[in-house]
């Protein structure tokens, strides 16, 4: 027992001693632990700072960062990732990545591959993925780009993965804006080039409308503008873009409503986010707004297109069914486009006008050249026609002067001279008439007359031409008298011209037919022949001045070729029409005159034609002044043969002196005298003692109206154009006697 107790004591002692060592060991361990703890704290603080710096760095980089372990569970998220995913780091830690980071393909809307899962599978960096959208915890969607990489430990083993992603919404938006700007610039450039290259106004308008619709984002656009036609009338045209013409055709042209009118008047831009709410909208009946079936319009942009001169070319209208489509920028773009287009249209119109002017000038030049040619031709013909009578006149004069000439020969000579002078006088009368018709100075002396008398006079005038070629003339007239308002002399001149032409251009022993008829609207007079006819290509020009069918020019019948022009002019003055018809060369011709039917009233008696008085001629005292001694002496001889007392002088001063001496009752003065003109002589005579008692008659080759007016203004009582028709002069003297 004592031994056991001792044993126990020994054990106790040993154990307690060991306990001391254990205590020492424990104390040492505690010290080590404290040191390790302190080192750990230091290290932890260091790690904490590093982590903090790391987290701050990650939070500062602007990109979202998520790390995951090898099982694909989230181990860390930076602040940016928290914001973008809607998960806090604490909430996300330990969660499967696909729960925290839900991504889909933007286009297909299908789930996209988990980049970390892929990285853990392939063990390498996975590059940027595009067109991915992140669905946050709240359900919102963000466009992102992401990439992932494996995290390896010091031995190179994969111990996790890190993913970086960022919001590309702004960049996408900027890219979209840039694409839009580029599109607009390209469109503006293309439009500018198209406008610069285009000279057709309608094509320009279409280009402008198309570009404006594209630039503004409108659903459809229209441009309404005025053009002037060749007839001088104004027409409203339009171009459309974005909609077929059928969508608008049935509505007709826009009316000047309070909404549309300002644009057509050029009163600035109208831009509205919802035009249906504009107070000007819907104020006019019957539609009170857009007509039923019209394409819906809420967004509205209307811009006047105004030229540099201030003229409103037209109105450009843009519309869209959605509200608030047109921005201020769109308005500025369209204004710029309209200004550009206005310049282009101005240029196109100027170009068109220049082209038309060139064409007009070319035509005028061609016409002038043609007229010149015809004039030359006419002058040659005139010279020819005038020379023709001069020859026999000269010859007849010679014969008459020849002492050996018999009375018969002398009488024949006189007849020849008279006839040829009459022919020349007719030529000159025609010339004067056509001149008056061309200048519009010929006045008709219209009266109610009977057709038969006119035709008779015409036939009589044309009879020599008809008979000379032994033509047969048939005349067909209405059975009842036909009255019409006309100048009988001029109408007879028309018909005689047609008959003379028919006779001239028909071979001998031809058939001529004059037919007159009347219907409700008009009186028709036609002259038909079986002569040389008129080629089709010449029909249109037969009534032109100086026109003669070429085939007729070879004929010896001559003529100035102004008869038909004169006939047309006279018919036009009567308010009628004249038409030439022919089936071609060698197939005869027909000329048809249509005169309007007058309102029938009691036929007016024809004014009394001055008939020669039966009163015997009184011997008058006359003075003739003309530097052409033959003309003066021949006229004096004629008057003396009528029993008048005639004194002849050959210059103006002699006329004044002689008039003072002989106190003539009538003075016939040439105008163009060598010392002083007939005008001066007349004025001095009027201002002299003879005053208004003297009858002054101008006898001159100048037969224009202004010549007559000047003569009358100088004091002459009458104006005669050489050669004076003797009977006309004698009748005048007789009328002077009657007045006296």
């Amino acid at each position, binding site marked *: 027992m004592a031994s*056991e107790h001792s044993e126990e004591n020994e054990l106790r002692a040993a154990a307690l001693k060991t306990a001391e*060592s*254990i205590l020492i060991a424990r104390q040492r361990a505690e010290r080590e632990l404290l040191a390790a703890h302190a080192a750990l704290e230091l290290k932890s603080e260091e790690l904490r700072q590093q982590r903090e710096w790391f987290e701050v760095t990650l939070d500062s980089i602007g990109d979202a960062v998520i790390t995951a372990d090898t099982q694909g569970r989230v181990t860390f998220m930076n602040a940016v990732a928290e914001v973008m995913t809607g998960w806090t780091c604490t909430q996300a830690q330990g969660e499967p990545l696909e729960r925290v980071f839900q991504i889909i393909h933007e286009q297909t809307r299908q789930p996209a591959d988990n980049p970390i899962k892929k990285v853990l599978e392939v063990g390498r960096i996975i590059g940027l993925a595009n067109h991915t959208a992140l669905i946050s915890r709240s359900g919102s969607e963000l466009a992102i780009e992401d990439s992932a990489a494996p995290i390896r430990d010091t031995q190179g083993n994969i111990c996790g993965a890190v993913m970086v992603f960022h919001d590309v919404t702004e960049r996408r938006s900027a890219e979209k804006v840039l694409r839009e700007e580029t599109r607009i610039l390209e469109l503006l450039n293309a439009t500018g080039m198209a406008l610069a290259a285009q000279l057709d106004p309608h094509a320009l308008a279409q280009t402008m409308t198309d570009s404006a619709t594209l630039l503004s984002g409108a659903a459809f656009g229209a441009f309404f503008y005025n053009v002037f036609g060749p007839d001088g009338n104004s027409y409203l045209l339009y171009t459309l873009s974005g909609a077929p013409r059928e969508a608008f055709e049935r509505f007709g042209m826009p009316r000047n409503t309070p909404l549309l009118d300002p644009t057509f008047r050029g009163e600035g831009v109208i831009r509205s986010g919802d035009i249906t709410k504009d107070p000007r909208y819907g104020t006019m009946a019957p539609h009170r707004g857009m007509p039923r079936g019209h394409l819906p319009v809420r967004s509205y942009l209307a811009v006047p297109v105004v030229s540099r001169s201030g003229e409103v070319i037209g109105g450009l209208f843009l519309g869209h069914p959605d509200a608030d489509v047109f921005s201020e920028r769109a308005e500025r773009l369209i204004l710029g486009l309209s200004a550009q287009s206005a310049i282009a249209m101005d240029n196109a119109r100027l170009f068109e006008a220049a082209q038309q002017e060139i064409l007009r000038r070319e035509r005028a030049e061609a016409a002038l050249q043609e007229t010149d040619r015809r004039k030359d031709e006419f002058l040659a013909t005139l010279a020819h026609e005038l020379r023709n009578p001069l020859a026999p006149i000269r010859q007849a004069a010679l014969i008459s002067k020849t002492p050996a000439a018999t009375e018969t020969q002398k009488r024949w000579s006189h007849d020849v001279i008279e006839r040829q002078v009459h022919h020349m006088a007719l030529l000159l009368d025609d010339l004067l008439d056509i001149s008056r018709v061309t200048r519009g100075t010929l006045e008709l002396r219209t009266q109610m007359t009977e057709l038969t008398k006119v035709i008779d006079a015409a036939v009589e005038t044309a009879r020599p031409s008809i008979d000379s070629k032994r033509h047969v003339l048939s005349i067909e007239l209405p059975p009842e008298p036909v009255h019409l308002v006309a100048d009988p002399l001029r109408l007879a001149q028309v018909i005689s011209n047609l008959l003379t032409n028919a006779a001239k251009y028909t071979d001998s022993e031809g058939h001529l037919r004059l037919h007159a008829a009347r219907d409700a609207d008009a009186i028709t007079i036609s002259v038909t022949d079986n002569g040389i006819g008129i080629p089709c290509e010449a029909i249109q020009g037969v009534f032109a001045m100086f026109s003669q069918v070429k085939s007729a020019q070879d004929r010896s019948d001559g003529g100035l070729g102004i008869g038909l022009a004169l006939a047309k002019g006279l018919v036009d003055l009567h308010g009628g029409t004249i038409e030439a018809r022919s089936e071609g060369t060698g197939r005869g011709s027909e000329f048809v005159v249509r005169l309007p039917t007058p309102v029938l009233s009691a036929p007016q008696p024809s004014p009394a034609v001055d008939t020669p008085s039966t009163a015997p001629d009184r011997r008058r005292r006359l003075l003739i002044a003309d530097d052409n001694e033959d003309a003066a002496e021949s006229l004096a001889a004629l008057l003396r043969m009528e029993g008048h007392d005639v004194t002849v002088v050959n210059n103006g001063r002699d006329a004044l002196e002689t008039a003072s001496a002989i106190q003539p009752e009538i003075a016939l003065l040439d105008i163009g005298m060598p010392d002083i003109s007939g005008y001066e002589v007349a004025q001095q005579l009027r201002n002299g003692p003879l005053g208004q008692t003297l009858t002054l008659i101008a006898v001159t080759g100048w037969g224009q109206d202004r010549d007559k007016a000047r003569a009358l203004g100088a004091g002459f009582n009458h104006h005669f154009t050489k050669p004076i028709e003797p009977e006309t002069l004698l009748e005048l003297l007789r009328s002077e006697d009657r007045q006296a």
Partner: protein
Amino acid sequence: MVIPTEPIGSIPRPLALIDALKPGAKSAGAHLDALYDDAIRDTVSQFEATGSPVITDGEQRKYHNFLTYSVEGSPNTSPDGFKIPFAAGHIRRMPRLTAGPFRYQRYADRYLTEALRYTRLPVKQAVISPSALSLLYPRDGIAGYSRESFIDDLLSEHVSEVRRCLELGACKVQIDFTEGRLAVKLDPTGALLSSFIDLNNLALARFSALERQRLGVHTCPGGDRDSTHSADVDYAQLLPSLFQLNVDNFYVALAAEPDRGRVLKIISEHLKPNHRLFVGVISPISAQVETPEHVRDRILEAAHYIPVAQLGTTDDCGFSPFCDDTSTTREIAFAKIRARVMGTALAAQVLRSH
């Protein structure tokens, strides 16, 4: 709900093996190895037959006992160390360290290796605590080898042994701490016990929290030949300190305690939330085989004090901590183990229905 149940470790050796290990026996070498192999194989087989979810190799190869196996045959030990008297009157003598450095002659993972050859069930390995082996150092010291050096070496060897067993795959490593109550007996002031707790915690501090989930401490009054060496020490003097040990699993003898309720109450006051208490429901020193119902009742009694989630069952002690202990037969040992397993299932059923 399942209540975990585990053995403590030792199973009586087959008589043939015991005979072969007696001093003077001529068995050695291959013959002895064959006996060991048979014993281990049979032990594993019978363990599996009990339905025990966790088994051991029955410590068949631990020679001579659970305390000295690691230094058995060490050249710097002598067999004349301190004596441990048992209530039955016999003593067991510890070896004495004669020189430094202190080194294990063998680590328990060798036993684990053998056991794992014969089973696929989870295998638990018991190791001796460093506090028990600290009693090898003589009172008068060792020239040239200080106690401090010894303590350092002791801790290093122990930690190495435990880590080897963990790395080999032991489902649990149980540290036998039967010297706890003995420490109180030797030093009622509790200073020795505190030093033992400190020493063990110095070792346990070298393991991670995860590793400590697979570590456990067994305490009992020290059983051998159906006797104990410190059952007379009040559990109340041990238990508060016991639960200062930095492990998650405690295997506490309770079946033979006269006032289990008191003990359970003390335990409940000191049990920490991360602790699991495996209460002893089988008394290896009793010859009577408990019935499953008896076991069930003991478990249900414990469940009054201990949260079921922190409850497990075990045997009060190994059935044969010393290899030459023939006080209990292998059959009885396995029968008791079977009763524990069945009784634990019955208790789980009852507690589940509640």
